């Protein structure tokens, strides 16, 4: 449970103290942080703070410092093994392996932490609990880093978030004069803060710069737009490449399949999938519901702003965190903000 801002303890630390702290964490647990991998930034394990990508670039302020994939992949990996299958004659033996290592993720952006919270509604709060997600989530501590200002494709403030929203973090870091303001948001976060060595402060974090806010149609307004011609028109651009879903912090469609490891030995895996795919809904016998690209693109937007919130009790909130990744990654210029603004336009 996150504490109200007024009750959170805060410390002021220097860059050197931050690095020492992260090095300590990396020694004791698995530390995941943004790393430069083949010229792109990804959340990856690091063994020393010096490997963290944005160390040289701090203070961090623009969207280009946001990893290409969200933290979703840490809790819900692109591919994961659910169990192995041994076949010996007519005998079948199934063996499970669960992830159970302690992990700390450093440098989480508020939009990504919010994405995890939104995935919790499905994987944790709706029965049956997903045992793989639950274990990773329970064993992971999120250290956030507030964005000082919003990037060019960011719109978190339009969907209920903020560049300095600490709500869904365990610990939040804000840039401050001479280093960082560290805020303990949850008990879990407090647990890994070496409080005694740091200088406690009553200073409040400086608010980040909010920008680019626009009205997003509320949930109740979506049904009336279902048959808008707009969906077929905008989908002319769509390539059904599914990249938007893969970079999205909350897209969570998956497929299960068996893969062979060796003769008589298999694994059942779960891997990411996306509703934009042409064969996504194909059923035995070849029938393909949602055959039109426009129907599939529409489904993605409805899932974010209407279906998922309805299905998993998000109330008035949507399942979009405003991270803007889908805008950056789309090779065809489908821009979610353009779509949302179009729906708000009077007919």
């Amino acid at each position: 449970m996150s504490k109200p801002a007024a009750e959170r303890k805060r410390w002021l630390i220097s860059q050197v103290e931050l690095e020492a702290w992260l090095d300590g964490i990396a020694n004791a647990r698995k530390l995941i942080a943004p790393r430069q991998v083949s010229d792109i930034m990804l959340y990856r394990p690091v063994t020393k703070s010096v490997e963290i990508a944005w160390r040289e670039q701090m203070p961090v302020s623009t969207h280009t410092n946001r990893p290409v994939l969200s933290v979703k992949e840490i809790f819900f990996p692109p591919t994961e093994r659910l169990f192995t299958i041994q076949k010996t004659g007519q005998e079948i033996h199934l063996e499970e392996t669960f992830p159970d290592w302690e992990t700390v993720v450093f440098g989480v952006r508020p939009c990504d932490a919010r994405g995890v919270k939104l995935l919790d509604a499905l994987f944790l709060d709706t029965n049956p609990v997903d045992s793989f997600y639950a274990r990773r989530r329970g064993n992971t501590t999120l250290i956030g880093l507030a964005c000082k200002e919003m990037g060019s494709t960011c719109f978190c403030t339009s969907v209920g978030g903020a560049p300095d929203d600490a709500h869904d973090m365990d610990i939040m870091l804000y840039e401050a004069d001479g280093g960082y303001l560290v805020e303990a948001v949850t008990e879990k976060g407090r647990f890994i803060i070496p409080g005694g060595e740091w200088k406690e402060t009553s200073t409040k974090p400086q608010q980040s710069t909010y920008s680019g806010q626009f009205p997003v149609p509320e949930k109740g307004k979506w049904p009336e737009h279902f048959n808008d011609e707009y969906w077929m028109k905008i989908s002319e651009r769509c390539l059904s490449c599914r990249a938007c879903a893969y970079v999205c912090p909350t897209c969570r469609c998956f497929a299960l399949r068996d893969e062979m490891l060796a003769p008589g030995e298999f694994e059942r895996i779960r891997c990411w999938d996306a509703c934009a795919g042409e064969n996504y809904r194909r059923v035995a016998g070849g029938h393909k519901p949602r055959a039109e690209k426009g129907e599939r693109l529409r489904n993605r937007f409805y899932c974010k702003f209407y279906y998922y919130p309805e299905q998993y009790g998000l109330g008035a909130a949507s399942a979009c965190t405003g991270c803007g990744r889908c805008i950056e990654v789309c090779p065809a210029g489908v821009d979610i903000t353009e779509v949302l603004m179009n729906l708000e336009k009077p007919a």
Partner: protein
Amino acid sequence: MNENPMLPYLGKLVEVRNLAADIKLFRVEMSNGGGEAFRTFQPGQFAFVSAFGLGEAPFGIANASGRGPAVDFAVARLGSVTTGLHELGEGDIVGVRGPLGNWFPMKKFKGKNLVVLGGGIGGAPLRPVIQHVLDHRSDYGTLTILWAARRPDLLVFTDEYDEWRAASDTNLHLTVDNPDEKWDQNVGMITQLLEKVSPSSENTVSITCGPPIMIHFVTKMLQDKMGFAPINNYVTLEARMHCGMGKCGRCNLGEKLICVDGPVFNMEEVGGLLETFL
């Protein structure tokens, strides 16, 4: 339930027999805790069956729980998993995950007439309804079964038609699109048969399963021509589910998920959404 709800129970195939062309009936005896999970299940529920090494696929449970401890699945050989299952024989082990989904409200149907419409393999999840009514015959009014297939050799459960016909207050009507020379029953689409039989909607519920396009036309005809209220017009739907527990996101029908909100719906619930299913 297992800690990991995606881990199947193991079950032994105790009977495998041909049901129709490229359609087999698999009777599974559960083990490994599956016996407890499948001790009772309801007409309309479904389960995933694994052909280990090839994957798993969802199937409507094809028998009523009261008909013995084993669980029946009717499987048409269409894709890799079903082809893998067709290669298995008695004594082989399959995985079973379930029972999943909601069911036909058989208690609510008590005292009512039932019209059951099955198209092809779509008849499989309706067999438990028929069995349940036959096993509790005095609880229900007239049972009218409309059973259809593209060809005579694609009709399922043919060896049980005598039992159905012999039951009191029970009528079976058969039709095929393409008859062979031996065929002496109706010829044509199930909608043509429905028009001919023209069941009264008075104190009656309808239950339909078949290809999406059949569900569309049959439910429409029941409402438009026979006066069935949407709330008495039941369907069971299928989709390409992967988890069956409301997680994988694949089977949505608007804001509903076929796996957890269904697969059984009445048309009041899904009438406006069915278009997205076609």
